[in-house]
């Protein structure tokens, strides 16, 4: 296809110089970037600095927050972080705007008018928590704690442990919803089916070739800063080639050596065909073949290498590049060439993200990607796709005797809609509540989660959340007055992440765990209180003290309990330094090859399962007797994976690819007995997208995306970010626009089966004909003045910039549109992932 370095150099003065080699550019790394100190540009005074952690996105980069006169004025990367090497993205820099936003919620507010009417009464924390504790206590004392539903968006590390494991565990509700299915939960399920745990680290520092299906790593990724600069460095200094399959020219595609504009939803076909090339041309020989020892390819777990190779060749035989060309529009020769490049440039790294997985066939796309990486020997090796490594913190577990939790079965969607929704189906929670067949919560509480804006079918979400007969009491925990808070009965104000405590543990790009903490740079504004402190207080009010009184105490105790951290000075060390990794640690690769000593598998309660080759502990799996365990077997014992000990392969027992959510074996499973038993294809298999099969000549695929300066739904209030990105006209290829008489900038109507929105057209050559793309982030109607023009009920007028929101002025750009009004909440039939990229629309000029 296109060699991006070789064409279209018009205007590029130094085209002739091409790629300058490492010797010079690599010096850039040695340059002292001299972080850690800051000075006021007006007075020259040294700024106070606090090592802490960004939380604009889930990447959670260690940072340094600077203050002047108890006001946050600047944020910088943490130069001592092995994850980020001291850089930050635009969002991280914009964190200043979160804490200084003039539209924050500053005190608890109780609804006084009709729900959603916008009439509020300021109440004291005592009043708010007495009422809430009273309601929760009543539910618990009646033996129905499950009628308290808690649903969270961004809740990780210490907050997750404190709130979910300790507080909700002690209270006894299991009706806990998350948001992962609208993020990338489907990818994780595919991981749990293949290599056990979830999350893949792309080892750019050591790779020689990068193949990308649907990740926009240069703009948005769940481990953005630890990966994006490393990929730039690999490309600039070592000439690593990056090939990106995407339906539009994202900035990642733009910086790639080659952009392959694939038809939406057909990444799976391309990957299957690449597996075909690898098997047919014997390119698995070498590292791929060696890895097959740890791979399960057939129903039986003890197949020989020859049998495995035959099975793979047979399975992929039908997926020829020519077949894939028909599906994907990518020329067969291109597929073949890239497959060869990928297979023969070892080590090579295979990236995937929502462009490939947020589809009807996303589970299979990810399993196929795992397959391609496996048969080329690019799993958990330096330079490949590695099993994630993060810090392992110890923490206080709260009261010993926790009740057996009870839950409403409303978090996984209707029974059978998805085969193995291990990360739940959060986009179906509202529908489940409306339906009522599985019960409804009396108290619904959301934490850093906006059911209204974050899910598809916004209109239905609004209707349900407004209906007091469906949801009698809704509590929203929030630093900001967002679209969901506006529909709450009680809003509890949270400080921003620059004003709170946490320990953190996000994935390390260098396969060495990094411990780090978040600490407040300033006192929480107004009456805002860290939700971790609030649950401690609530627990006291309900007579179930947790054993610590605040999040700070929880973090302090965790520091003292975690051996690596304690050894260097615990909490005090972390407060002073922010980050820590054990010096001289070796990066963790090939963890599956670790042998389990006989003492571990010839032990009390441990038995061998003939069907899977797994050693497991029947006692830990809560069986009453060994014979009962043997009769039921590992695969069919509820949560037996928790009792996994090791995998027998030949005459040895290995740690293998340890299961983490499903009763899989310790093999890297390319053949899933679990899926087979659920009526799905055991090996990665082509699945056509039903809506796409039925498309007519006027239909377009609609796809969504994220940009580098906004977080999905939680940054439109950041004035410096929204000044750069506030409007999201639909990308459309001029070919498609011409046919419909649409010119650049025209108002257009975009209609899907569930509704329509109006927006503007952006005619661009940077998108595949037949596709339109509308980003997330925009079209807010709350979230304060910078996001929507609407002041929050507790908004203040101290920021002169609220008078300078030029993009909202008459005749200027405006605030864009939210695509979720017209995207249906629909799951991947295997893993339940929300299918963000499958919508079919028609467009017309307004």
């Amino acid at each position: 296809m296109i060699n991006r370095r070789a064409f279209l150099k018009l205007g590029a003065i130094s085209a002739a110089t091409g790629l300058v080699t490492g010797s010079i550019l690599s010096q850039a790394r040695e340059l002292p970037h001299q972080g850690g100190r800051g000075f006021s540009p007006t007075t020259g005074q040294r700024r106070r600095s606090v090592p802490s952690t960004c939380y604009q996105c889930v990447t959670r980069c260690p940072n340094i927050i600077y203050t002047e006169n108890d006001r946050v004025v600047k944020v910088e990367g943490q130069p001592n972080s092995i994850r980020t090497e001291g850089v930050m993205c635009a969002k991280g820099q914009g964190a200043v705007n979160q804490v200084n936003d003039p539209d924050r919620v500053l005190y608890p507010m109780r609804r006084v008018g009709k729900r959603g009417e916008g009439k509020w009464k300021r109440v004291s924390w005592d009043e708010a928590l007495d009422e809430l504790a009273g309601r929760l206590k009543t539910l618990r004392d009646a033996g129905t704690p499950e009628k308290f539903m808690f649903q969270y968006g961004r809740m990780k590390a210490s907050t997750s442990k404190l709130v979910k494991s300790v507080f909700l565990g002690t209270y006894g509700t299991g009706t806990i919803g998350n948001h992962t299915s609208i993020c990338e939960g489907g990818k994780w399920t595919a991981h749990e089916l293949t290599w056990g745990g979830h999350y893949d680290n792309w080892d750019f520092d050591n790779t020689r070739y990068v193949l990308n299906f649907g990740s926009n790593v240069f703009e948005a990724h769940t481990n953005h800063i630890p990966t994006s600069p490393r990929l730039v460095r690999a490309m600039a200094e070592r000439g690593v080639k990056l090939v990106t399959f995407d339906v539009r020219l994202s900035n990642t595609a733009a910086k790639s050596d080659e952009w392959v504009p694939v038809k939406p939803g057909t990444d799976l076909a391309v990957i299957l065909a690449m597996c075909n090339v690898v098997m047919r041309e014997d390119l698995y020989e070498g590292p791929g073949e060696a890895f097959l020892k740890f791979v399960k390819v057939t129903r039986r777990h003890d197949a020989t290498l020859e049998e495995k190779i035959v099975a793979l060749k047979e399975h992929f035989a039908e997926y020829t590049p020519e077949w894939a060309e028909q599906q994907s529009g990518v020329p067969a020769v291109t597929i073949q060439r890239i497959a060869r490049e990928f297979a023969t440039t070892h080590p090579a790294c295979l990236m995937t993200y929502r462009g490939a997985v947020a589809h009807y066939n996303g589970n299979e796309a990810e399993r196929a990607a795992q397959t391609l990486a496996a048969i080329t020997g690019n799993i958990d090796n330096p330079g490949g796709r590695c099993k994630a490594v993060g810090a392992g913190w110890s923490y206080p577990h709260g009261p010993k005797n926790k009740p057996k939790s009870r839950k409403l079965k409303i978090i996984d969607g209707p029974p059978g809609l998805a085969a193995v929704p291990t990360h739940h189906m959060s986009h179906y929670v509202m529908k489940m509540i409306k339906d009522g067949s599985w019960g409804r919560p009396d108290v619904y509480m959301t934490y850093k989660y906006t059911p209204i804006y974050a899910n598809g079918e916004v209109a239905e979400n609004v209707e349900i959340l407004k209906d007091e007969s469906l949801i009698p009491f809704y509590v929203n925990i929030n630093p900001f007055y967002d679209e969901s808070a506006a529909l709450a009965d009680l809003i509890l104000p949270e400080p921003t992440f620059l004003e709170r405590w946490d320990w953190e543990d996000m994935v390390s790009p260098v396969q060495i765990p990094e411990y780090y903490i978040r600490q407040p740079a300033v006192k929480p504004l107004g009456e805002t209180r860290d939700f971790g402190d609030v649950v401690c207080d609530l627990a006291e009010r309900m007579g179930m003290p947790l054993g610590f009184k605040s999040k700070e105490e929880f973090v302090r105790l965790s520091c003292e309990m975690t051996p690596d951290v304690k050894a260097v000075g615990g909490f005090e060390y972390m407060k002073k330094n922010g980050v820590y990794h054990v010096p001289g640690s070796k990066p963790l690769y090939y963890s599956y090859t670790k042998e389990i000593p006989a003492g571990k598998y010839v032990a009390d309660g441990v038995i061998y399962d003939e069907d899977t080759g797994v050693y497991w502990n029947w006692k830990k799996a809560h069986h009453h007797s060994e014979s009962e365990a043997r009769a039921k077997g590992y695969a069919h014992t509820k949560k037996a994976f928790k009792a996994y000990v090791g995998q027998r392969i030949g005459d040895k027992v290995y740690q293998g690819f340890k299961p983490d959510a499903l009763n899989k074996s310790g093999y890297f499973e390319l053949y899933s007995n679990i899926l087979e038993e659920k009526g799905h294809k055991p090996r990665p298999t082509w699945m056509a997208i039903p809506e796409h099969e039925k498309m007519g000549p006027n239909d377009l695929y609609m796809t969504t995306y994220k940009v580098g300066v906004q977080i999905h739904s939680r940054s439109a209030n950041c004035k410096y970010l929204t000044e750069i990105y506030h409007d999201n006209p639909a990308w459309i290829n001029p070919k498609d626009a011409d046919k419909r008489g649409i010119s650049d900038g025209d108002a257009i109507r975009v209609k899907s089966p569930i509704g329509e929105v109006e927006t503007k057209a952006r005619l661009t050559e940077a998108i595949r004909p037949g596709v339109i793309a509308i980003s997330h982030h925009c079209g807010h109607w709350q979230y304060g003045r910078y996001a929507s023009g609407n002041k929050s009920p507790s908004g203040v007028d101290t920021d002169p910039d609220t008078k300078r929101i030029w993009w909202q002025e008459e005749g200027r750009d405006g605030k864009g549109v939210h695509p979720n009004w017209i995207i249906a909440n629909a799951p991947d039939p295997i893993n339940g992932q929300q299918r963000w990229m499958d919508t079919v629309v028609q467009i017309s000029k307004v």
Partner: protein
Amino acid sequence: MASDSSKKTLSRRQFLKVGAAAATTAATLPATVASATTKQSIHYAMVIDTRRCIGCHACSVACKTEFEVPLGESRSWVEYVEKGIFPNVRRSFLPRLCNHCDEPDCVDVCPTGATYKIASNGIVDITKDICIGCGYCIQACPYGARFLNPETGTADKCNFCLHRVSEGLVPSCVNTCQGRARIFGDINDPDSEISRVLATNAVSVLRPEMGTKPNVFYIDADHTDERDAERYNTYVRIDTHRRQKRRV
């Protein structure tokens, strides 16, 4: 952890004095990269290697926060240039800031001497105390780098983070750059990183025909503008990502 605040105030008067002297001599000093033999002991410059730039805007936002730049104005911004016909489409990124020119038009037109080139390091700065906000410099700058700050009523623009640089720190935009695409330093020092990069790469500057002799150098910059779209009859789209939609 709190670091002690050490009181240190930038002396504007001092700058003014040296600045005034420099302003008068600036025009006669042919300080180019090749012959950087001025009286300056230090000659600050920046190289932006666009091959390493991914258009992330971290630099623009870092700058905006460092100086609390009012909405609508920018010291630093990142332009996107998109061009070609599907599927041969390219998007490139052009980070922008004041060029700290050796022959700055803004200095020439300033009636009060508020805008001046610092003799000791080459930075073009503004002494706010004596700027009368007449806006001549804003008109004169061929790069659209200047604006009237609504908070102070004075001219404003990038000053290479003088308050950081004078403390031995790199500018804020350089500190945060994801791609490590921005290299800042002294081109009078042959051993500096920036001198080595300049010595071994072809670079370009923006609008060289203006004769201002910029000190911001680009590797592999895409200089395409809307005029090229007409000339080559092809698709070109420029996004400035600031209030001024037209590229200057």
